[in-house]
């Protein structure tokens, strides 16, 4: 799988260590890198290899992240700048690339000028761990597993809905929201909102108002949920969280003669979840709004 990269693409970049050698080194460097975690604490920089991402993979990463003109793409370890430049040239986005290697930063600047996108992209010689991630709507990475895991807590603090794309290496037990395989594995994560805790809502469903108590526990975007409807325990089904969008289903058995599913969809914003509530299906379907707040009513 790795070997095809070396034959499949002529990098537009020249003057780098041969890609073939770079690729053979990856497994070796992974091992070295793992061992150097300890050394890193003593102030030594781990060796991060420069392996350019094939253009097909760059395209696939930006495609599954659904990059558009409103986006700001941050590439951590930007190399010759191809991801940020492609984001600007093909998707109309703006972007910033950071890299530790000053000669690569200069080369990326040159490539941006050549592509005519220098007004929309910037490259900085900077450690990715010193970079402000908060400015990005999309973060692209191609880092070895130890670096991905080191970055993970900071990624989880980002604004809900921020997309992270990577290839080959994932984020450990934070499962990707989407994954495609076109020559290489490409992963997409969407930073989930922090929704864990207790929520309360009054639901305006005729003929009687229902009181919903919702308790959410969260592991990344995966939720487990418990609810009480008018004080009666009710199971919560199909609970999903994508960025700041929450949805779940509760079966409303308040009226035994008229049981129906309640389909909740809402946007999480700080201490409030607000959205649409559908009761029932087909001709008996009714739609209302709902609003939940944290803690007690």
């Amino acid at each position, binding site marked *: 799988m790795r070997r095809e990269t070396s034959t499949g693409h002529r990098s537009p970049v020249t003057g780098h260590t041969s890609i073939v050698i770079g690729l053979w080194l990856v497994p070796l460097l992974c091992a070295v890198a793992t061992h150097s975690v300890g050394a890193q604490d003593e102030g030594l920089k781990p060796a991060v290899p420069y392996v350019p991402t094939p253009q097909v993979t760059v395209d696939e990463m930006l495609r599954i992240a659904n990059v558009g003109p409103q986006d700001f793409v941050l590439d951590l370890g930007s190399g010759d700048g191809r991801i940020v430049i492609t984001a600007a040239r093909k998707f109309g986005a703006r972007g910033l690339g950071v890299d530790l290697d000053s000669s690569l930063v200069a080369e990326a600047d040159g490539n941006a000028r050549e592509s005519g996108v220098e007004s929309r992209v910037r490259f900085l010689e900077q450690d990715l761990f010193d970079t402000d991630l908060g400015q990005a709507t999309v973060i692209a990475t191609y880092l070895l597993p130890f670096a991905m895991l080191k970055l993970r807590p900071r990624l989880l603090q980002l604004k809900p809905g921020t997309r992270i794309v990577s290839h080959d290496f994932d984020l450990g037990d934070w499962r990707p929201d989407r994954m*495609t395989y076109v020559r290489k594995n490409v992963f997409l994560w969407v930073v989930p909102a922090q929704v864990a805790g207790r929520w309360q809502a009054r639901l305006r469903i005729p003929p009687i108002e229902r009181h919903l108590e919702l308790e959410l526990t969260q592991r990344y975007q995966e939720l487990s949920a418990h609810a009480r409807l008018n004080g009666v325990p009710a199971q919560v089904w199909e609970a999903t969280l994508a960025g700041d969008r929450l949805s779940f289903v509760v079966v409303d058995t308040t009226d035994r003669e008229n049981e*129906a599913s309640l389909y909740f969809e809402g946007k999480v914003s700080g201490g409030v979840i607000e959205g649409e509530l559908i009761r029932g*299906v087909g001709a008996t379907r009714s739609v209302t709004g709902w609003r939940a707040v944290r803690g007690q009513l």
Partner: protein
Amino acid sequence: MRRLRVLAGAAAASWLFSFGAGAAGTDSDIPTPYLPSTTVAVDEMLRFADVGPADLVVDLGSGDGRVVIAAARGYGARGLGIELDPKLVEEGKANAQQAGVADRVTFRHGDVLVADYRDATVVTLYLLPNLVDKLKPRLLELRPGTRIVAHDYGFSDWKPDRRIVISKTYLLYVVPARVAGKWRLHFSRPEGERVYEFDLAQQYQEIHGGARVAGGYLPAFEARLSGDRIAFVLVDNGVSYRFEGRVQGSALLMEGTVRSGVGRNLDTGAWRATRVVPGSSEG
């Protein structure tokens, strides 16, 4: 394995359990008990199948007719219920009359294993696993794109296209077109038309394959089949081509659009493939 599933599933309802345990020796002769679906279960099946006015919903083992009556009343669909118990057939007819949908639903007395329901666009079933598996060969003969919704029990080796759990487990299967075999794939590119020898292997809706080109093989990535809709990606010479199209009724031709590039640099062309040699598909 199947034995276990019968018992494990049946354990959910205690009286069903006694059925399953009693028939432990003769797996295939377990009578199908009549256990009506709840209102919520009927709702979920029809919602999950995305039933609409253009649909003919066929319920295999229709009982008192609640599924097809709900499909007609709630979604404007037409319905056909097939039921082995003649008393329940009469009950279904009366219930349809009462619900004011007698002109849109019919009930037929018969065995679901031999009944003719080839015009179905949606099939709903709530049957024990041994019967579900026996129905499979005939369900696979239905028009590609026909949706099958089962609850609690699905097919033993055909993976559902989608699965949801709302009190019960609902499984959605889309009847796949038969695409296995060797195809000749023509597609237009800015620099002219290209022809590939394109092979597809298939197990139900799961497909894999690739194109044979001079000096190599291009695997089809992200290959998907849903009913008569097919999609796959070929990477040739550092460029990815995203194919999307439809398999025509005869299954001898498929055609659609092919996109290369991304974002603003998107080129769209047309592709068509003709089947040279049919393949055998398990499914």
